[in-house]
């Protein structure tokens, strides 16, 4: 076999490795029901859940807890996924500044001890200048 062919084979092998690993590392969009099932099965993969904040009729956010004077690194809220399943979400970081205005929230993380622990939060907020348009912001719980 010629060197170039061996070389080609190696490249193909690495490329396949990359694709397999990407597929393996890629997260998925699921709902809370699925997230709970996964946790029960012991699947510790981080997942994406899209949802809305729990609000009362007048638009006030319900079940949200943040007391920076006690612990600035603990923020908890309730998210309702697209199938109307409620779930408490814990985000071990400061409350994102624009959180209250967000219309849609994507939480990335996993179920732990009955609560969804978010490593990252993506929010869609209404843009002030473009009517009807949404802007995305991202927040990550730090880890080191």
């Amino acid at each position, binding site marked *: 076999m010629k060197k170039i062919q061996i070389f080609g084979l190696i490249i193909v092998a690495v490329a396949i490795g990359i694709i397999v690993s990407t597929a393996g590392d890629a997260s998925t969009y699921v709902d809370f029901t699925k997230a709970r099932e996964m946790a029960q099965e012991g699947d510790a993969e981080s997942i994406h859940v899209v949802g809305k904040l729990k609000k009362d009729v007048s638009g006030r956010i319900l079940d949200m807890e943040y007391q920076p004077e006690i612990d600035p*690194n603990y923020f908890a809220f309730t998210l309702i996924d697209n199938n109307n399943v409620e779930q408490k979400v814990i985000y071990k970081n400061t409350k994102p500044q624009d959180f209250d205005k967000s219309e849609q929230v994507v939480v990335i993380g996993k179920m732990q001890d009955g609560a969804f622990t978010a490593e990252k939060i993506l929010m869609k907020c209404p843009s002030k200048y473009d009517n009807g348009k949404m802007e995305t912001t991202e927040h990550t719980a730090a880890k080191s």
Partner: protein
Amino acid sequence: MIHSTIGSAGHLLVIIAFVTALVATFAYFKAGMSGTLPEETLTWKKFARMIFFVHVAAVAGVVFSLYWIIGNHYFEYHYAWKNSSLSLPTGYTISSFWQDQEGSFLLWIFWNVVLGVVLIFSNRSWEAPVMTVFALVQAFLTSMILGVVIPGLDLKIGSTPFLLLKEVMPDLPVYQMDANFIPKDGNGLNPLLQNYWMVIHPPTLFLGFATTLIPFSFAIAGLWTRKIQDWIRPALPWALFSALILGVGILMGAYWAYETLNFGGYWNWDPVENSSIVPWLVLVAAIHTMIIGRRNATALKTSFILTIATFILILYSTFMTRSGVLGNASVHSFTDLGLSGQLLVYLLTFTIVATGLLIYRWKELPVDEEEVSTYSQEFWIFIGATLLCLSGFQILATTSIPVYNKIAEAFGTILNMALPADQIGHYNKFQLWFFSLIIVLTGIGQFFWWKRVGQNRLQALYNPLLIALIISAAIITYQGVKDIQYIVLLTTAVFAIVANGTILINIISGNYNLSGGAITHIGVALMLIGILFSSGYTKVVSINNSGLMISRSEEFTSNDNKENKENITLWLNKPEKMGDYMLTWRDVRVEPRHIPGYIPKSWVDIVEGDFHAVALRDIVVNDKKYNSKGDTIEIFPENFYYDIEYREPSGRIFNLFPRVQINPRMGGIVSSPDIQRKYNKDLYTYVSMVTNPTAEPVWSQTENFTVNMRDTFFVNDYVAILDNVIRTEQVEGVTLGEGDAAVKAIIRVLDKDKEYVITPSFVIRDRMVARKPEVSNDLGMRIQFQEINPQTGQFSFAVNTTQRDFIVMKAIEKPLINVLWLGTFVLVIGFVMATIRRFKEFVKMRNRENMPASGKSKSKARPQAV
């Protein structure tokens, strides 16, 4: 009055630019076809050139029109209204131009025009085929800002920046009252982007994008006219120039993100960042294969593939960031303007035409006679280029996940794939090893390139290897590097510096012109070391160890207390220990426009919804008086700076001023870091949460206290003592006349570790009672002197309390980050040298080619400096 002429002119010029681009494409194509007669070719060429110059003029006109609209504040235009405002300093008015999508397309079009003109004048022999590609690209780009609706089909082509506000938002209620309404002011540039980087980063990046078209055009021209090898010489200097500019553009973005935007670091693996680094990696690979492409057939073929791939990847990147396909995945992609279809056509056209042409000509490309030797330079360069491409491929494979979802959607299935939750881990898993290998190859490759080693004589490599191992061992021990992958990356990078350094010393005395490669490689190696330490050994310093926190026991203690304590709360004027430092939040400051530094917010009263403030006292900074009390000064109304005092163990004090910006465009409050720069590390501090500095405090219900002199009472859990009530002659804000009287109470409030004195006053003026309360922000308390009862000798006070002011902040140490920036400069110098060298070679060759040719080309051969 609505200035409709300039907009119509701009719109018309866009249409002219589009049409001329199409005509120029056709004419240059005709001129490039080899079947036609020489005279006919010449006629076509002249005609094409003339049309292209009309195109150039039209584009210049479009740019001018848009500037005119923005510069003159014609807010009846949507673009000016949306992206600029009266209060915007002049420098940033320029950047309003490319703040939005249409403007950034225009910037790209503008650069292409400039580059096209340079090419026409510097390279006559390649003009026709190269400019065919150029003109076609221009046709596609101008179509993006065409803004023409094809009647009957209801098909909108492009989005024009010359729309009136009325045309964009016809439903605004104001238009029903006044059809000629013109807004008084615009929305302004997003305050977060009001930064000099916004002035230089986008033009640089877009020049980088635009220049990738040149090597691509030459490759296509080479295939087309069967100058299978000759295209490399003129294309190579441009490829280097492109890699230089694109690289600088990307790094500027990285630095901007680090310094201002607070994405947490200089690289966030954001899809927008990724999709610009991938073409750069492939371009760098292409440069390497082009260098050996004239000698080696495999490298030549690879050069074709990679140069084409670079440009296609730029188009793909444009498609990703502008079509809305990224959706949730990216923080800073553009919103969808409805151009997705057009962008896709653009991308697919060039992909299909370029690949088609390459396949069509593949059989005519040369083939290597014999196998390449493992001891040849070609072999090592080839491996290096391959690794660069694999690195790019890995980034691309992951970044494209949202695209897979869309493709699946188009085929009727739902994929629901999302980007990896731990992106850094995912990318590092590959990139760290790829770059360890790549950087080693830069060293080995250079030794083979300069024939310092070969078959049976590898000795020359032993010394650099030995030196590198010793240096790395020293660094590993000194810095305490323990992770095996970091050890590998560090050792390989040090080896690259030593090896390239050896070569550099060898060749620099002979001809420094040739040392560009070695210098660039050293730059990359330094950058890798900087990245390794600043990212791998980032240390959060703001670990909360005050012990005062009420802990959520298990969570706080689990995982070595690390997980959730990286932010600390600071109360106004209350020192808190953080690592080795004692921190105190002192003040909130604002940024005046014509005064250096920041001034306390309490010195001024900010006029709401304006960029002016009224001075409440004389403004004296560094012993210089800038304004008197009552003056109106200009400020940046969105920016607030939190004065945080750091006291080092040695007693030395420095202050950092992390910024908080009230920015409705970004959804509320945006914070930017302040950085204490030391030679060996940066201390990166930012405020992660504040109470809105513009909000009025919410006071609790009034509580009344009636006490005797020297009585003790409890307010809001504090012990307060009325020490005295004394007569006073001066009450701030009140002028006392004859017969007026004023007293003030001296109330001592005891906090845990500090005493505060609050002195509310009680004034009788013109037989009227005035009560001047005093507010203590430190305590979150307001006391008003209510009443004096002469009978009982008792005094009454009204007390309101509010949330005490606090901020939550985070501080991170980034060690050796300066090595990254140093590496960047070295890289730039290397690229500049390599570019100049290859330009000189090109000019020499062109002039030689032109010599024996007929007289007509002699006068036209003008060396082009870069």
